[in-house]
């Protein structure tokens, strides 16, 4: 067990899976870098976020493929390679770029198995970096997992820590269904205990990171550490919460959430994406249908406003739900009690 950043945990998962299964390939822009450069040095990059470092020297350019800036061809190539028996891991760099390749994700990869009557598999993993917090502006900071969670045929992973990230990525690569894997940019450097050997974290099983009596808090990705902060701050006031990290939004472990709400009667959902047709709304609607009787209070959603992600640090800080807003929401859930 060693302390690894989420970046290094993901990198370790890729190394271990490529070593284990020669059908696994990696493709994307600058996953290695350096091709056609004047220094002649390959792997000048190892991925813009460094997640694919060391793969090219170790596995060669047949399996670690630098591509032109052609996302539709990247994702489409991953789809075709998968139909032809490989297990591609495609890197889209920023999740915001789904705009130029969505068709291959939502009309092709997600639907092949169904359209073809269950007679084919398309074991693709599409990695993409998400989230605000680095002042990258409206087109490089979005959290769009809801858009893809809505697509039947896709599985969607949104890890919150290094340990889960490694296990979930290995699970994703071994899964025979297509998987979209979101990596929060702000979490890349965050360290955690990560076992050296390969292991998997199953899809559709939420993590219970705090246990309490009063409020159920559901959070994803970077919202998880923020929620932990808020929850821990309230303990001294005698307010205790269940903190549930679904880890995968599709499949979703709704049972763990419902069970918790049966106990607490209060639900706060923290989501980094804007509120409309969001993951927060999704969870709220399921609870309003399936645990309605247990609810003592209105379900509270903590999200950014219905706006793009601002560039200016002063605004982005206000845009992203932080510990203070989460704390306030939990208090509100309690307050209304009296």
């Amino acid at each position, binding site marked *: 067990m060693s302390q690894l950043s989420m970046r290094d945990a993901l990198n370790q998962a890729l190394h271990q899976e490529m070593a284990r299964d020669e059908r696994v*390939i990696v*493709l994307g822009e600058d996953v290695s870098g350096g091709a056609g450069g004047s220094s002649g040095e390959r792997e000048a990059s190892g991925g813009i976020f460094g997640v694919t470092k060391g793969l090219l020297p170790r596995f060669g350019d*047949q*399996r670690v*493929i630098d*591509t*032109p800036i*052609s996302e*539709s*061809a*990247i*994702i*489409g*190539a*991953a*789809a*075709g*390679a*998968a*139909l*032809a*028996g*490989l297990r*591609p891991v495609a890197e889209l760099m920023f999740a915001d770029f789904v705009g130029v390749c969505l*068709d*291959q994700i939502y*009309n*092709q990869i997600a639907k*092949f*198995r*169904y*359209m*073809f*009557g*269950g*007679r*084919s*598999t398309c074991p693709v993993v599409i990695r993409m970096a998400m989230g605000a917090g680095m002042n990258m502006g409206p087109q490089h900071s979005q959290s769009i997992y809801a858009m893809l969670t809505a697509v*039947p*045929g896709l*599985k969607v992973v949104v890890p919150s820590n290094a340990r889960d990230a490694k296990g979930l990525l290995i699970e994703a690569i071994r899964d*025979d*269904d297509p998987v979209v894997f979101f990596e929060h940019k702000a979490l890349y450097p965050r360290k955690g205990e990560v076992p050296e050997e390969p292991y998997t974290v199953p899809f*559709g099983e939420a993590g219970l990171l705090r246990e309490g009596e009063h409020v159920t808090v559901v959070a994803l990705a970077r919202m998880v550490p923020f929620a932990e902060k808020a929850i821990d701050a309230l303990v001294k006031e005698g307010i205790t919460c269940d903190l549930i990290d679904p880890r995968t939004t599709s*499949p979703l472990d709704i049972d763990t959430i419902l069970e918790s709400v049966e106990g607490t009667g209060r639900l706060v959902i923290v989501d980094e994406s804007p509120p409309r047709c969001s993951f927060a709304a999704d969870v709220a609607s399921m609870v309003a249908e399936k645990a309605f009787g247990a609810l003592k209070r209105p379900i509270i959603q903590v999200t950014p406003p219905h706006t793009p992600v601002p560039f200016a640090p002063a605004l982005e800080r206000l845009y992203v739900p932080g510990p203070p807003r989460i704390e306030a929401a939990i208090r509100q859930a309690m307050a209304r009690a009296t």
Partner: protein
Amino acid sequence: MTDAPALSPQRLRHAYRQMRLIREFEERLHVEIATGEIPGFTHLYAGQEAVAVGVCEQLGDGDYIVSTHRGHGHCIAKGCDVLGMMKEIYGRRDGLCKGKGGSMHIADTSKGMLGANAIVGGGPPIAVGAAIACKIRGNRQVSVAFGGDGSANQGTVFEAMNMAVVLKAPVIFVMENNGYSEHTGAAYAIGSCDLAGRARGFGMPAECIDGADFFAVYEAMGRAVARAHRGEGPTTLEAAITRFYGHFEGDPQNYRAKDEVARHRRTMDCLQRFRARVEADGSVAIADLDAIDAEATDLIDRAVREARAAPAPVEADLYTDVYIQY
């Protein structure tokens, strides 16, 4: 001819059979669709048979193709079961895709047929991916992307072409220029009026061929496959061809001159031209071809009969085949 060895009589009969089967399949659909019995909307391949067959006669089950919304011909040429196809088009439970895909999504990956595609330009990137798999295996397999003149304006196709050149992927882009995308002429929608020239601009060789001449397609495809086998990467084949019917069944075709189709049926019928040629060089007995025609008619009769009689999907089918495990 230098690139491709002369075809044996049975190879010739097989090629003719495939073309006739496609023609029969489509002509019959044209009739059956008019009865209103067939759901959805259907794009017929009749007139373009020599392209699908000329290309696929150079391929084996290990090779891959991706197709389009006008995919019946490609599917048959690549070996998909015509009975299963017809049932699929009728929306039957034992159709090739259990009735879930329909005319525009017929696929059989076990035959290397990676799917018709209802998204114009959806296929070529997928073909590049299959070609990457072929290249990694180093087993002389190739991948083919069929596409129309209209699809050639979709950015995804250009991306696929450039990436194929960059990766020296063993993929052949077969551009079936039938002169129209829906109700708009290729002469308008393709700025350069030259698909092959555009492909050359991407750094790959491109040939223009007569899409109604099976032998021309077959030989050009042979050269393209040989290039791929030599590790020289992608090739584009632009086939000049025509469709005998509308864009989809029910299309009034006001954009076409009254006599256009009749003229093309006289001069661009790949089956007539195949017959004329083998009759001239005596490589196949005309009686054999007549026998093949009769077989084809019987098979398609049977396909329609069985499809009509086949059971529809049931409610339980609604929830299956989305995920392998969820």
